[in-house]
């Protein structure tokens, strides 16, 4: 990040407090495709853990 002057730093802090205090609103304003990407990632974790019960679940480790 380029070096910030004190005025710019103050503006940055103000903006971050504004965005961070309303995180749900901030996330809602995000590009819809990113929100979709997160949902897809979160679903894939659940799916991966479900599928672990099938193929690899039959192997015997000894």
């Amino acid at each position, binding site marked *: *990040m380029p*070096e*910030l002057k004190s005025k*710019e*730093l103050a*503006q*940055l*802090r103000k*903006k*971050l*407090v504004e*965005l*961070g*205090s309303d*995180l749900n609103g*901030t*996330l809602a*304003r*995000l*590009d819809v495709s*990113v*929100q979709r*990407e*997160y949902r*897809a*990632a*979160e679903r*894939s*974790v*659940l*799916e*991966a*853990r479900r*599928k*672990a*019960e*099938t*193929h*690899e*679940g*039959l*192997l*015997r*480790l*000894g």
Partner: protein
Amino acid sequence: MRPWVDPDKAFWLLRPRGEEDWEDLARDYTEDDEPRPLNQILDVARRGGCRTVVVENRYVDVDYRSEYSAFWSKKFDSQSPFARRLHFFGADLQEERLHRLRDDEASSYLGYSIIRPVPHGRVGRTVMAPPPELATATLTLASDEVSFFGTPLSVSGVPFCEQDSEYLRCAHAAAWICHYTAARRGDVGRRHTAEIVELSPDVLSPERAVPSSGLNPNQLQALFRALGQPAIVYGLSSLPKVMGVEDPVSPDEEGASEKTPPGWWDTRMTSIICRYLNSGFPVLIGAQEHAFVLVGWRRDDEGQVQFIACDDRVGPYEIIYSPFEHRLTPWESIVIPAPPKVYLTGETAESRAHEVLRSMAEQTEQLSDIAGGLLDGSIVLRTALRSCSAYKHEIEGLASSDQILSALRHARLPHWVWVVEAHRSESCGNGKPCVVAAVVLDSTAFVLRPSLDILAMPSMVLIYPPDDAEVVSVDGGADPWGSLLKVH
């Protein structure tokens, strides 16, 4: 009773100096010249600068004695109930002073290895300090304490034990390594090896429990639940997507009749495994009907990830140069025993952090480089689980001001938190502070919308207290800061 115990001696002392001395010691406990886990242990001791080996005779080992009671004592041709314990020291010890070691002699302790009096699987509970060449690796170390003829000694290392091919199989040995690490850290109570066998439910398999032919992943999961370490399990055929982590493409042409197993090409396994190794948890790998445990990782000169393994067929601290060129490639499953209250996976935590950081950075003009970096891969996320107390301890040297340290240390956090750091990757390799933002998440949070505990951005730290209290904001510096991680 087999002639195993010398009735006249409490110990004997060896001073191996050359190749031949070490080979003689190995030959005392191995039948042939094939490389065995004991050879690997002796090699680790040797590389650590070992000058004295003390063989503790007629040692009553709680693990082996449990195996003896549950199994070996019931055989017609029984074994001795006693084990031996090899102690390794960097100092030259004198026999007449073993009952009263000097501090410098005690601090040269390199670890111990228990030798069982059984035909296969001679190596029982073992904790050896890592060899010097692994000093820069991330390792899932545990510290252990022993009484050396009354002198308390301690060693920090990765636990290891070998299967005996009849009662304990590789899955038991691997589960025990994960368990003993957690027990030594105080996360779970200590169970001996026969309890590990007893807690493996035979109803989940058509096979008889003893003699054992191994465990399937369902039995392993049931075992880890009983041990207080329910496991996160991933099959290589369906690894999860994580935002910011590249999804590799299968090398197979569309419609190919035979598919290349993902263990040959799915690079996502590396980041998944590293998240949990960064957290201090050993990761069990299932491959080719064998189980072994990854206990660390490091980067080679070109930045490629290498893993450190404890494989009961090989010994402790085996270096795996690539998961795609290992003798057991393709790996098939990843089993991560974790504390019960870690409901959120590292994968979901990292995706959530990516979403939040991109959202904040894209809506803040001065942080456009962070938004761009998350998209083009010049900023990468690194994730680790920390106990709240460990996190608050470790941030002391990283907080940019005393005001921030005070706010973070007074934050009300759950017992376990996921810490996701955004690293500027070009700074990681040259030792410069590389963290440009960080997110701390509640490990018990609901997976669909995991809540944040802390958000650290350039110039500002925001703390989200529980109970709907007001968000706390603290001004900070705009410069990057150091990472909690040893290797990243």
